[in-house]
C-alpha cells in the first residue's frame, strides 16, 4: 500500500474500540491500588449504592475507598480527559494546525493563573465555582492574547503561535506558582499542582462543578464539525462556501476554552492529551471532525483514566504527578510531529 493511499478504520470499529478501552481503563481505575477490589466486588459495591443486594462479599473499607475516592476520581478523569481531547481537536481545527495543544498554546497556564486569582479574590463569594469561573476567564485571556499575536494577514503563523504560547505559558504559569507560594492559602494546594496536575483532589463535589462545563463543550462542539472541516480548506474557502468564519471561531474557541478552563481549575494543567489523542484518531480515521471530535473526547477520557492508574500505582506509596507521565509520552510524539510537519510543508512558518 503506497503512502498516499488511504487506510481508514470503520467508524463503528473505532468507537467500539474506544468505548471498550474506556471501560477497561475504568475497571483498572476502580480496582487497582493499595486496597484491592475485584471486578465482581466493584459491581457489588456499585449495586449496593443503588439499593440492590448481591451475593458478593466486600468490606466497609473497600466500599469507602471505591465510593468516596476511586469512583469520583475515575469520573473526574473521564471529564477532564474528555475535555482535553475534544478541546485539542477543536483548537487544531480552528488554528488549522495539528500542533495546537491547549497546553502548548498557553491556554492551560492562563487558566491556572485565572483559577488561583479567582479563588483568592472571589473564593468567598463564588464558593466552589470560583475555580472554574477563573479558569475559563484566564484561559480565554491567554487564548485571545496568543491568537492575536499569531495572526498575520488573515492566517495563523505556526512559529509565532507556539512561541507566543510559550511566552504566555511562562508568564501565567510563573504568576500562578508565585501566588500559590506567596498566598500560602490551603485552598490552592501545592505549587506543583497547577503546573503538573493531579487527580488526587477528586471529590464528588469537584466533579459536579467541573462536569457541566465539560459537557457543554462535548455536546455542542460537534455541531460545528462540518464548519471546522471547511475551515481546514482555508478561511477564504470556508467563507466562500457560506461559513461565518469569525463567528465559528468565537464559538469553537469559547466552548473549547470553557472545557479546558474548568478542567485546569479542577486538576491543574495536564499537557499533551489534547495533542496525542486527536493525532491518533486522525491517523486511523482521518481529519473529518464529525468523527474526530467525539472520538477524541472518548479517547482522551480513556487515556487520562489509564494514565492516572499508572500515576498512582507505579511508585507506591507515592503518586507521580500525572502531567509528568503525559509529558513523557507526549513530548517525543510532539517532536515527531514537528519533524513531520517540517518535512511535508518545508518548514513550519
Amino acid at each position, binding site marked *: 500500500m503506497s503512502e498516499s493511499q488511504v487506510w481508514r478504520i470503520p467508524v463503528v470499529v473505532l468507537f467500539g474500540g474506544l468505548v471498550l478501552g474506556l471501560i477497561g481503563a475504568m475497571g483498572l481505575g476502580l480496582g487497582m491500588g493499595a486496597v484491592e477490589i475485584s471486578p465482581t466486588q466493584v459491581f457489588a459495591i456499585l449495586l449496593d449504592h443503588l439499593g440492590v443486594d448481591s451475593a458478593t462479599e466486600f468490606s466497609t473499607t473497600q466500599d469507602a475507598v471505591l465510593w468516596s475516592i476511586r469512583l469520583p476520581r475515575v469520573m473526574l478523569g473521564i471529564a477532564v480527559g474528555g475535555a482535553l481531547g475534544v478541546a485539542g481537536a477543536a483548537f487544531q481545527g480552528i488554528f488549522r494546525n495539528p500542533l495546537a495543544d491547549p497546553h502548548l498554546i498557553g491556554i492551560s497556564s492562563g487558566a491556572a493563573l485565572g483559577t488561583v486569582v479567582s479563588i483568592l479574590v472571589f473564593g468567598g463569594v463564588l464558593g466552589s465555582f470560583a475555580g472554574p469561573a477563573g479558569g475559563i476567564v484566564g484561559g480565554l485571556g491567554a487564548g485571545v492574547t496568543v491568537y492575536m499575536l499569531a495572526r498575520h494577514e488573515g492566517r495563523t503563523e505556526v512559529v509565532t503561535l507556539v512561541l507566543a504560547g510559550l511566552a504566555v505559558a511562562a508568564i501565567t504559569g510563573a504568576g500562578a506558582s508565585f501566588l500559590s507560594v506567596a498566598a500560602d492559602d490551603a485552598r490552592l494546594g501545592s505549587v506543583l499542582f497547577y503546573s503538573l496536575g493531579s487527580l488526587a483532589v477528586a471529590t464528588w463535589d469537584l466533579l459536579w462543578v467541573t462536569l457541566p462545563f465539560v459537557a457543554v463543550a462535548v455536546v455542542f462542539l460537534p455541531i460545528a464539525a462540518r464548519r471546522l472541516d471547511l475551515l481546514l480548506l482555508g478561511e477564504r474557502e470556508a467563507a466562500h462556501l457560506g461559513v461565518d468564519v469569525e463567528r465559528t471561531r468565537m464559538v469553537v474557541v469559547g466552548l473549547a476554552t470553557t472545557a479546558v478552563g474548568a478542567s485546569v481549575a479542577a486538576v491543574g494543567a495536564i499537557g499533551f492529551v489534547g495533542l496525542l489523542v486527536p493525532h491518533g484518531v486522525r491517523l486511523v480515521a482521518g481529519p*473529518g471532525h464529525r468523527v474526530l471530535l467525539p472520538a477524541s473526547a472518548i479517547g482522551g477520557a480513556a487515556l487520562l483514566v489509564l494514565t492516572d492508574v499508572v500515576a498512582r500505582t507505579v511508585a507506591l506509596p507515592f503518586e507521580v504527578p500525572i502531567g509528568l507521565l503525559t509529558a513523557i509520552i507526549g513530548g517525543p510524539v510532539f517532536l515527531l510531529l514537528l519533524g513531520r510537519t517540517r518535512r511535508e510543508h518545508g518548514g513550519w512558518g
Partner: protein
Amino acid sequence: MSAAAAIGLGYRVGGATLLDGVDLDVADGEFLGVIGPNGAGKTTLVQLLSGELVPTSGRVEIGGRDVATMSLAELALLRAVLPGHHVLQFAFRCLDVVMMGRYPHGGSEADARAAADRVMTETDTASLADRLYPTLSGGEQARVSFARVLAQETPLVLLDEPTGSLDLRHQELVMGTLRDLADSGAAIVAVLHDINLAARFVDRIAILDEGLVRAVGTPEGVLRPDVLGSVYGIDVKVVPHPEVGCPLILPIGGGRVG
C-alpha cells in the same frame, strides 16, 4: 441578463489604489477572461466580485443585488470561487474535499456523493478520489480544487488562475469544461495568464492594468499589438491561429527593465 457586475468598483488599502473605477459585467452564459500584468489588480477584482473584500468605492452586484447586502450563505449558492493557491494540509481524501463543495446546498450525504462523482468524472479527477489531498502534486491539487468549485453548482463561477499549475492537457480540459459550463448557461469570470489559451476559449477579454480596465471586448477586438505592447511593455506580433482563427500572440522582444 447580467449575472454579475462591477459598478465604479474601487479598492484602496494603505494609501495604494489596487483597483479604480472598474465597470465590468458578465452575462449568463458568458465566459469572461481577465488578463493583465502582475500587480494589475486581477486577484483583487476576483476578491471584490466574490464579496470577500468590501469595496472602498462602487459596488458589486450579483443577480442584480448588491453583494454587500447578501449573507455568506446566500452568496454561496450564487457564486463559487477558486482561489489562486490552495492551503489544505490535513489528510482529507480528494472525494471528501470535492464533497465539501456541496455544503451550501445542505443536502444529504448521498446527494453530495453523487454530485462529487459526477464533477470528478467531468474534470478527470475520479482516479484521485481515494488519494489524500496533501500527497498530490500542485497541479493535481488545483484540479481537485477545481472539481470542488464545480460541485458547488452556482450560476456564477469566479476563478483566479485555474490553469496556472496545470500541464497542457489539463489546461485544455479545464478551459473546455468552463466553456461547456458557460454554454449551458453559467457566467464565468477567470483570471488567466496565458493569453493564447484565453483567446481560444473565452467570449470576451478584459485587460486590467494598474487597477484600471484598459480594454474589454472580444479576443479579436482587444488583443491588438498596440494594446498588449503598452500594457505588458513588450513587442508582440498578433497572427490568426492557423487552425481555429482566433488571435495568436507571439512575443518578439522588448522585455526590458524600465
